[in-house]
């Protein structure tokens, strides 16, 4: 919960969090080491110096640390757990649905648990998806179209096999398809950043929502064009958001483009925890305004109303969260106790 100086309460749903184990003990090979090292480089490069973690903490943090960072020192009310399996790099996987499920089980009112699938897993994968969706009552999945698997160097959502999976997901009650279209994770021959496949499936599956994580960066220009033509395409701003600290000018440009092309109802906040933490991101976001010259050009303004939508209301709509009822539940569970305490000096 974020409270403005005027006393407005903003309900925050973090659209992008992970509970990972990237520790050396879990690394299967050099790729596992390089993967977490690369995440750490994002963290170290884009965090304010005071928010940098030791490498060891970054490789593997415990459940309590995560809870505190999100909900106690951070302003999140709820968080969506997005899995990243990477079983080729990590012995027990990096951040599987099963691992995330332990967090969800301890704090059912705080977490939304998402699953994953990979259309290259054939009929066995379809069975697994079925089991996963029933076991955890999934409303959403996170997909990595750029992930390499054996001889395959990625897939497109418009592939025939992808359609089978999306149809199955839809039947299982999954409504929200989060797709990683962001900075590189091992793409080769297929241009995995390409957002054209989103256009295809968004048209074919009008009842599903497609959340393009990292808003298509590094293909923001192509993404905006597609998103504006489809009513069910959303932008997740994880990875774009931390630029608010190191490159506020670029962040302003990205936000003004997203507001211009997609509008305030189709942008979702995400911290990408543990790469970055909600506290500083939201402090800076709430204080942020799009510079006048950009507003003049695009008409985009980050009003309090727009910020409220981006930080929580849009995700609440996609995941069927009744904000007032949810606040009551969290308050009853003592979740806001820290807010009434005096601010530590």
């Amino acid at each position: 919960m974020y409270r403005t100086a005027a006393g407005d309460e903003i309900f925050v749903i973090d659209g992008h969090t992970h509970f990972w184990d990237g520790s050396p003990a879990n690394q299967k090979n050099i790729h596992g080491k390089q993967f977490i090292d690369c995440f750490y480089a994002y963290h170290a490069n884009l965090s304010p110096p005071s928010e940098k973690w030791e490498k060891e903490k970054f490789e593997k943090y415990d459940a309590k640390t995560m809870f505190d960072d999100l909900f106690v020192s951070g302003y999140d009310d709820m968080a969506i757990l997005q899995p990243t399996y990477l079983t080729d790099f990590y012995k027990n996987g990096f951040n599987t649905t099963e691992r995330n499920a332990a967090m969800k089980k301890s704090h059912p009112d705080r977490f939304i648990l998402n699953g994953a699938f990979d259309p290259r897993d054939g009929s066995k994968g379809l069975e697994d998806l079925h089991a996963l969706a029933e076991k955890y009552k999934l409303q959403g999945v996170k997909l990595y179209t750029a992930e390499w698997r054996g001889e395959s160097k990625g897939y497109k959502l418009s592939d025939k096999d992808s359609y089978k999976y999306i149809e199955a997901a839809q039947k299982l009650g999954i409504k929200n398809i989060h797709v990683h279209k962001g900075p590189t994770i091992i793409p080769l021959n297929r241009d995995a950043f390409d957002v054209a496949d989103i256009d295809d499936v968004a048209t074919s599956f009008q009842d599903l929502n497609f959340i393009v994580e990292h808003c298509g960066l590094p293909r923001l220009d192509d993404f905006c064009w597609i998103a504006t033509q489809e009513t069910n395409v959303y932008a997740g701003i994880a990875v774009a958001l931390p630029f608010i600290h190191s490159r506020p000018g670029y962040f302003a440009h990205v936000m003004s483009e997203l507001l211009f092309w997609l509008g305030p109802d189709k942008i979702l906040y995400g911290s990408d925890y543990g790469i970055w933490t909600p506290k500083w991101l939201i402090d800076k976001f709430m204080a942020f305004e799009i510079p006048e010259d950009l507003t003049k050009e695009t008409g985009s303004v980050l009003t309090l109303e727009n910020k409220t939508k981006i930080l929580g209301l849009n995700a609440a709509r996609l995941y069927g969260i009744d904000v007032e009822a949810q606040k009551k539940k969290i308050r009853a569970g003592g979740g806001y106790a820290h807010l009434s305490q005096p601010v530590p000096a």
Partner: protein
Amino acid sequence: MSGRIISSLPGDHRQAEHWQVDTRQADVWASLRRVMDPELDESVVDLNFVTRAEVDGSNHVHIEFRLPTYWCAANFSFLMADDMRRAVGTLDWVTGVSVVLGEHMYADTINAGLARGLSFQETFGGEADGDLEELRRTFLVKAFQRRQVALLNHLTGTGHSPQTLTALTLFELRGLPVDDEGGRLRQRYLERRDVVAAARDEMPAFVDAAGLPLSAERFTAYVSGLRRVCVNAEFNGALCRGLLSVRFDLETPFVPKARASA
């Protein structure tokens, strides 16, 4: 970097030899400076990607480079290596060029392909579908657009009207009196002008990505339409530079929070 030691070397013969190596090395760096990261449209030298460029006694050039992440797209990585090999290979005294990529997920595959002079397609075999020419062209067009909008913004900012600019031929653009910054931006633009259309003297200076001349009426809308291409590219450039500097400690070493506050 080298060569300032000449005065301490004994004998004219040795001096001449070193001077030669020195200019050859400078030639190599100058050639590499013209090789761009296709996505960022910035020089691989300015981006700090090239870690080594040496000429041996038989005029063979050995180049080593690294990238911001272990995962940088293999196709872009290959493209840059190939461009470096071609650029340095055009120097008339060069007898051979070897290019080696370090610390990359596909370093071994890429390096083996490069060493044998294979294409990207040949290097990756069945895993790659299609050569790199289409990809190369896509990014040359984006570079053309960025360079064009930078020049147009500069020229309109220094008082040239859309009417004047859209009426210019290439010959007239080359002769247009501009300040230093304008000259630099013009040079960069002209280097990519032929990506989209023929670039003879009498042709329009400013055309769109399809090669059609810009009109004064749609000038403002056209320029603001290119905005996204530039925002996106600047974002990528900032990200890549930052990741490289963390990965290879190009900046002040990181002081852990606990120690910093102690």
